[in-house]
């Protein structure tokens, strides 16, 4: 794509800004900031990736993945501020996902052991884990708040904290996984996934692009289930104290 073509693509940024202005939606500022940020961030990442790929150093790969995990954790933790120690819980979950998926991918030689594969796949897994964490935390906090009487009932009858939030926990895990599962049901029929489209546009064989896309879909399914379940089981105990009482969130 030429620089001129990229400049012309800004027409697609002007359309929502004009619409927002016309309808008084007040989103012009946010949209502009989002566009500027994405241009800067992607350009910076592009140059960094070029440097990391050229250097072929494992240390830079670790650093890139670490930065991704830290950024994802800091973003997702805002939604779980009501849960004590949520930052390290998200971080541990994302690290676990990264270690597990890369161990399988590299251990079974599913993908080549190069930065070109490790970093983009890590980015997709960690990014998906972050979105899942946000979806799960949003739902879990809402469920526990709206079902306080059920929690109190089960505790008052001699139930354990796990029993007291079991229904809310399972509902939240399921709800956070639904978007991933549903989008996979219609994939290829309704939308062509971004990575696959990108590979095809870049000139790769559609069959090879599909193979990689399938790999990513399977990984996303694992990420979705592990993120929600692990974060759920790490989160609920901190809502109670040793005397099995609900800890008030401040």
């Amino acid at each position: 794509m030429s620089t001129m073509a990229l400049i012309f693509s800004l027409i697609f940024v002007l359309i929502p800004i004009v619409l927002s202005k016309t309808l008084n939606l007040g989103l012009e500022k946010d949209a502009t900031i989002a566009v500027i940020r994405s241009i800067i961030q992607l350009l910076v990442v592009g140059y960094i990736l070029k440097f990391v790929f050229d250097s072929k150093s494992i240390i830079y790969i670790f650093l890139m993945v670490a930065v991704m995990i830290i950024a994802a954790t800091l973003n997702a933790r805002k939604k779980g501020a009501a849960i004590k120690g949520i930052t390290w819980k998200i971080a541990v979950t994302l690290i676990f996902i990264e270690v597990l998926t890369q161990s399988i991918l590299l251990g079974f030689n599913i993908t080549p052991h190069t930065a070109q594969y490790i970093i983009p796949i890590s980015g997709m897994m960690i990014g998906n884990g972050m979105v899942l964490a946000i979806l799960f935390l949003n739902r879990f906090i809402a469920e526990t708040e709206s079902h306080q009487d059920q929690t109190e009932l089960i505790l008052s009858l001699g139930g354990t904290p796990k029993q007291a939030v079991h229904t809310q926990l399972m509902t939240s895990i399921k709800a956070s996984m639904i978007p991933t599962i549903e989008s996979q049901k219609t994939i290829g029929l309704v939308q062509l996934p971004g990575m696959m489209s990108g590979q095809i546009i870049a000139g790769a064989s559609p069959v090879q692009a599909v193979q990689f896309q399938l790999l990513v879909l399977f990984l996303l399914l694992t990420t979705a289930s592990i993120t929600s379940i692990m974060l759920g089981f790490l989160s609920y105990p901190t809502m109670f104290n040793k005397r099995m009482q609900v800890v008030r969130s401040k």
Partner: protein
Amino acid sequence: MLHKEVNRMKPAIQFKDVNYSIDGQPILRNISGAFYDGEITTLVGPSGAGKTTLLKLCNGLLSPNDGDIMIHDQTINDYDPVELRRTVGMALQSAPMIDGSVHKNLALPLELQGKRLPDIQAIDLLNDVGLSEDFLQRNSKELSGGQRQKVSIARTLVNHPQILLLDEITSSLDQVSQKEIEELIVKINRKYGVTIVWITHDLKQALNVGTYTWVMMAGEIVETGKSELLESPSNERVRQFVKGELG
């Protein structure tokens, strides 16, 4: 449920200088006194007096900041929380029901222990609270306020509590249902020797049902004694409360 041995002179629950606060805001102040074994004690007082908080302390849903609570001469912190909550049962004001049938709700306390509630036992419980066995498979969402409270009480009895805490269980009921619940509580007390602590906003109910009454205001016990104290209170604030001049 078996009748337990009752020693009416012995405290079932005893408070020793109990204080409870949230974020430095006192909710209960210097609570001392006893709920006697096998007796019905009513708690009355204006909204925000700390009555519900006091019950939650007894059931272990909350813990005091200072002071001690003794349950049958054993300090509350020595109890395992699960054992405590089965010994000191609590029927909550809103009588929350889990989704499903009345049987599912009655079976909940045993299900939490990995056990099942046989139908015959469930029918006995329903009969105990004045409901027929037809209710067993009825959806809990279809119950009236009075029926919900009866199921809630029956559900609490599944654990065979020695002490039963009742939080405003008749506040939203019509007079007929209120009367039925009153008779039911007296029956449970007499039949099984269960110590009962009952928060009520209805002073007539406190007089009719309770042997003892505690009057609470702004987190403190203002007057305690035989329920007849409500007819001739010695404390001026209690006199005003009884006359309906305080919230």
